């Protein structure tokens, strides 16, 4: 009977963190408080993120917008084409609302302003995934 109960549990959510700042990446990794959330990779720019997404097949991606080589908007566009079911949480310090709207239009699912508290981060993730 125990095995039946086990199958009722939520499956692991695979998280990919994309941010050009090492500090922010580590911050997100440490602050998330979900037992069933598994960080499958961290990327410092859009190109790395796409490559990692191809390999690790994440369910959730936290996405910075201003990054070298390939910015967040472009990365979201390609990511959604590649994996339409992926959920994208934009985490950005951009006060520019137009960019936030643009990100949502390209397929982002949530928006979190930097700087953020642990609680805000966890609430934003929970809203997208559960």
């Amino acid at each position, binding site marked *: 009977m125990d095995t039946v109960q086990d199958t009722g549990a939520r499956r692991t959510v695979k998280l990919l963190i994309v941010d050009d700042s090492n500090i922010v990446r580590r911050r997100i990794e440490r602050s998330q408080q979900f037992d069933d959330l598994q960080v499958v990779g961290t990327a410092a720019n859009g190109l790395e993120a796409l490559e990692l997404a191809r390999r690790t097949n994440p369910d959730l991606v936290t996405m910075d917008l201003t990054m070298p080589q390939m910015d967040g908007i472009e990365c979201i566009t390609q990511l959604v084409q590649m994996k339409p079911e992926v959920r994208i949480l934009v985490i950005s310090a951009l006060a520019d609302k*137009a960019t*936030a*709207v*643009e990100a*949502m239009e390209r397929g982002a699912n*949530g928006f979190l*302003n930097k700087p953020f508290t642990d609680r805000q981060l966890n609430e934003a993730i929970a809203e997208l995934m559960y």
Partner: protein
Amino acid sequence: MLLSGVDRNRRLLTAAAGIVLAAVMGLVLIAGFRLATQIRANVGTLQQASELEAYPSAISEQLTALRQRLDTLEYTGHVHGELASSVRGFNRDFTALEHQKGIDPTAMRAAVALWTNYTPVLAKVLSYHGEPYSDTATNSSLSRSGRVFYAHVRRAELFAQANAAALHRELAVVSASLQARTAAAASRLRWLLSGGVLAVLLLGLAAAYLQVARGRGERAARDAQDQTRDILATVREGFFLLDADYRIGAVWSQALTTMFGRGDFAGLTFEELLRDKVPTETLNTAMKFIKLLWGERAHENLMKSINPLGQLEVTMDNGRGGKETRYLQFDFHRVMGPKGVKHVLCAVGDITSSVMLTRELHEAQENAHSQIDMMVGMLHSDPLQLGSFLDSASAGLKHVNAILKEPARTHAEFSKKLSGLARELHSMKGEAAALNLMSIAQRVHHLEDMLAELKARSELTGNDFLPLVLKLDELLAHLRGVREMTLKLSSLREQPSPADGTLSTPALRVPTAGPEELASTLQSLAHKLAEDHGKDFKLALSGLAQCPPAYLGMLKDCLIQMLRNAAVHGIEANEVRRAGAKSGGGQVRVDFRRVESGYELTFEDDGAGLSPEALKEAAVRKKLLSEEQAAQLDNRAALALIFKPGFSTRNEVSMDAGRGAGMDVVAKAVYGLGGRIGVSTNPGRYTRFKIALPALGETAVA
């Protein structure tokens, strides 16, 4: 709109009441009809029964009459016929009655039994046919058959006499039972009719009540509509609904009309509402955002956080032919229907005044900050220095006024006026900055900007100087304020100390700045310049104490100017210095000494030095020289260009340099005292100014 549910219920109730009323009336009618039919049948039967009651005595009497006629030998034919008819009638009616319902069965059975006994006795009488008398003409006596007939009649008479009462009694009971039944049916009909009337009355009352209630409901709905209209007319926010085509609905609040200066909102798209009022880019973002509101990803909080129309700057016609800028705040709320988003409710607020207030607050804060900065600066500086600055600034402004009052007609004269003003103001700014009196320095800087603008004009008239005069008045008022504050500060400093209670010297002393004050002014200016321009250098002063008081003022002016030039033009940025393999910090050296012929000031910085070619190019660019003239200059002459009025090598204007009034002021001051000025440089290594001043008392001779 809110009452529609209640209204519908009320209508249903009314219809139901109508149906019930009709059904009840139908039932009453059917039941009444059946009862009436039954009563009618009963009445017929009752008539038969009461008629039957008469037969037994009638038969009995007819038999007696028949017997008497036989006794008296009279004619019997018609009596016999009557009897036969009676019996036939009784038989007929009795048989019909037997099958009627509701008759007392006991009485009926008894009556039937009695009549059954009658039948054979009567049959013998009725079956007689013929003449009972022997002589038909005279009826003299009974014939043989007559005698038999007589015997039958007599027996029947006796039987009838014996049984008529009993039969009549039984028939009366039957009749009574029928009567009772009819009465019961009539009573039922009465009740039924009463019930029917009551039901009709009740239903009528209910219908009337519902009608009244409906009227009240309609009135309430009308009132609610009125109230909605009043709310929409009074509320200060603009409210409207957007449908899935981003079109505005039929209802909107009146405030929109004043906000957008139009009244035709119904059916207008959101894009049309904002077009021509906001930049295209903003409009595109807004439309993208609104599109997102209809999507399933649009959580209220998320959409609120990325709302690009939270503070929208719109340009409107002000109704007087001009344009005005207003700030609008758009809030969006999704109205959900059974099939997802039904409408989006937009709330628009005019936040212009609050935005303006925030700005004013910000400016006031900045002002307060700069005032505090100034006070702190004043606290940190020597009151003597401050006093001397204020004196020289007042004198300077008086001079400026004098220059402004000079009559001028030609462009050249106006130009000269401007140059004079510029020189005066520039040195005032330098001193203010040196004393950290930024509020004064900024005001003078502003004046200089106005001068520069005037200088750039090809034509000048006296009127062009008017704004300048106003600005100067403002500066004078500010200076007065600063002076008052200085007095207050110095009186604070000179308060009698509570320990000994003696009065110290009065607050105002004659401000004569000595060499020590000059040294500290220069050091603090050097520090400030280094900070402002991101340069790193040290100022080394020597021999200033040997300066005679008569030269001190001029020395100060010149040194401030040269120090500023060195900081801006001379000393390189740190990176440049490192690249040129120079030591980390720059060095500015000032040396004043007595020499045989009088005094000598050396001012040297180990900065970039001067490039004669760059100076020539700058002079050509500033149109101080033609290209041909420049080409003919040797290096010495090129270096001397920096003493020409209006020269500067920097293109952009900063507070400290770049106005071309730099070395020009110094040279003029030096020449004014009968001195000489020279410059030597080694590009990339140093710039050195040497100023020779005559010994005091020899001025006149030189």
